[in-house]
Structures are given as C-alpha cells and as structure tokens.
C-alpha cells in the first residue's frame, strides 16, 4: 500500500486549505469556452467529503437566487479546481449534512466554530504559501 501512496502523491496537489464538512468555501473553477479560459467562483457550504488519496470529491451547496438550492460535486485534485478559499469553519456533529436539503432559512444555518477567524486566516495563508512555492518551482523548471 505504501508504494501506491508514493505513486499517488505525485498526482495530488495540496495547495488548498484544510477544510471539513460544515465549512464555507469559495471554489475557483476553470471554465473553458472554446480556447478561452476563465475562472468561475462557486461559494457555498461543504456538505460532504468522500474518497481517499487521488480519488477525493467534495460537495458544495449554495442557496442561489430565488431560494433555490444548488449543489456541485468537485473532484478535489482536478486540474480545473484552480483554488479553494476557506471562508468560515462550521461547528457540526455529522460528516454528511444532507439534512440541510429539507430545511430553509434560519434552521438551515450552521454554527460558526471559529468566531475570530484566526484559524481560517492561518489555514488560507498556509495554502497560499504552498501555492506560491509551487508556482515558483514550476517557473524554475
């Protein structure tokens, strides 16, 4: 199994802040239109994370205009996920927040864990450092 992990490590990009279910994130997603490429942001609550190694996905739920819930599943290590930004950490008691689908308004909220956001800032900073380091390494190559 160790050898499998060794091979997988090369496929994994770890330039994202550590996040869990219940956290609010902004996913910067690369969208290709013809030969143009732009970045689309998708902000919402992470309601599930699954998989291990190179095979991980997470589901983000946001309430769109008109009070319509929109969910998207992102592969964590996809080259199309340009950046993940942590917005706030949630204090939750289960790993899958599917119960939020049946709730609306006040009862669909998640308690905030880290009121001062010190942790959030720290995690984002670390992720950015990693990303910068990687970019530098790429340029040198």
């Amino acid at each position: 199994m160790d050898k499998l992990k060794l091979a997988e490590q090369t496929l994994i990009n770890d330039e994202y802040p550590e996040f869990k279910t219940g956290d609010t994130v902004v996913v910067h997603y690369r969208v290709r239109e013809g030969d143009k490429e732009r970045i689309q942001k998708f902000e919402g609550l992470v309601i599930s994370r699954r998989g291990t190694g190179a095979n991980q996905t997470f589901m983000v739920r946001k309430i769109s205009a008109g009070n319509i819930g929109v969910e998207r599943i992102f592969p964590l290590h996809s080259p199309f996920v340009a950046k993940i930004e942590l917005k706030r950490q949630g204090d939750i008691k289960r790993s899958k927040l599917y119960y939020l689908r049946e709730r609306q308004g006040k009862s669909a909220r998640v308690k905030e864990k880290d009121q001062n956001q010190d942790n959030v800032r720290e995690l984002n900073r670390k992720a950015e450092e990693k990303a910068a380091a990687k970019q530098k390494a790429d340029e040198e190559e």
Partner: protein
Amino acid sequence: MSSGLIGKKIGMTNVFDDNGKNYAVTVIEVDPNVITEIKTNEENGYEAVQLSAFDKKEKSTSKPLKGHFEKAGTTPKKYIKEFRDFIPEDAELGDELNIDDVFSIGDNVDVVGVSKGKGFTGVVKRHNFSGVGEATHGQHDRQRHPGSIGQASDPARVFPGIKMAGRSGNERNKIKNLTIAKIFSESNLMMVTGSIPGPNGRFVEIYNR
C-alpha cells in the same frame, strides 16, 4: 513476440489528464529485471532473453536454481520468464533492465497475469448467462439456472464443451492495448490505464505491442 518486463501489481488509483478527464489506472512496480540467460539462434534455434525479478530468500531456493542465478552473478529471484525475440542491445548475463529501457509514456502494452480465483461459481457469473425465467408468474427456484443443456433422445447425451458451473478464475489472462500513463523511474513504478488481472501483489508480465 516482443519486448517486455516483469512487474508486480500494486493497486489502482486515478489520474487527470490536461483536459481534466479522469482515468482509472493500475500502479505496477517493476523491480530492475536481471538477465539470467540469453538464448541464441546458433545454440537454441531461436532468440530470447530470460529475465528474473523480485528477490527471494536464499534458503528457500533450490541448489540448481542457486547455481543458475550465480552464473548471472545475481541474488535468487522469485519470478523467471523468457521473452522471445527480445534482445536488448549489448545484452550480457547479469545486466539490469529498468522501465525506461523498454517502455516510454504513451506506449501501448499488453499485460498478462493470473486472475483472482473465484472458486466454484454458477453459470451466470462464470459464463455470463442471463438465467432462466421470471421471478413471478408461478416460476420458482430457477432464476440463475443454465436452462437446457442439449436435445432429447436423439443424441441422448450431453455434448462435450457445454458451458456449465465450475471452478472459475485463477487462470492466465492477457489484457490488451493498455496505455502507459506515467512512469516514476526513481521508485520503479509505472501506471497503465485500466485494470489488470489478479489481486494486488501478484506478478504480471508487461509486453510491448
């Protein structure tokens, strides 16, 4: 036949290509393959090279084999396989072959291995029969049965070779036309697209197409 190497199945994972497409891949470990015998047209009537890989304990090696490996100046190996019509350049006994010597990224390969043993299985699993009849309308006890196995009193026997239940799996299989997705030279690992026969840890042979 063609050039190839001996490897070991490590496990499966997946990779993204530049277009964001996700592929299932199998990780194969290719220990440096040692040339333990060279067969030539003059001596043997055909050309081939015998490769050995993956170390084995000295005490579990028989004396004749020990002598064979000593001749090539290497330690005893677990898996030995002859690759016909494969003559590496300046091949000499005891030379080591690595992934880069034989394969490169994007090559198409065939992988041969012994599949997982499934034990005694019925015809639905073993021969992909679809079973007999419906679940309701008075039918019972024959949803996964083979159905008829022949005619009536004319042949009055069952012809040989009729597909029936029995031992399944644990046989040599070749999976053709897999593509090499990645090669890690330092760690002796490579990735081929798709699945290959056998459980993790089983030895496989990889052939160039």
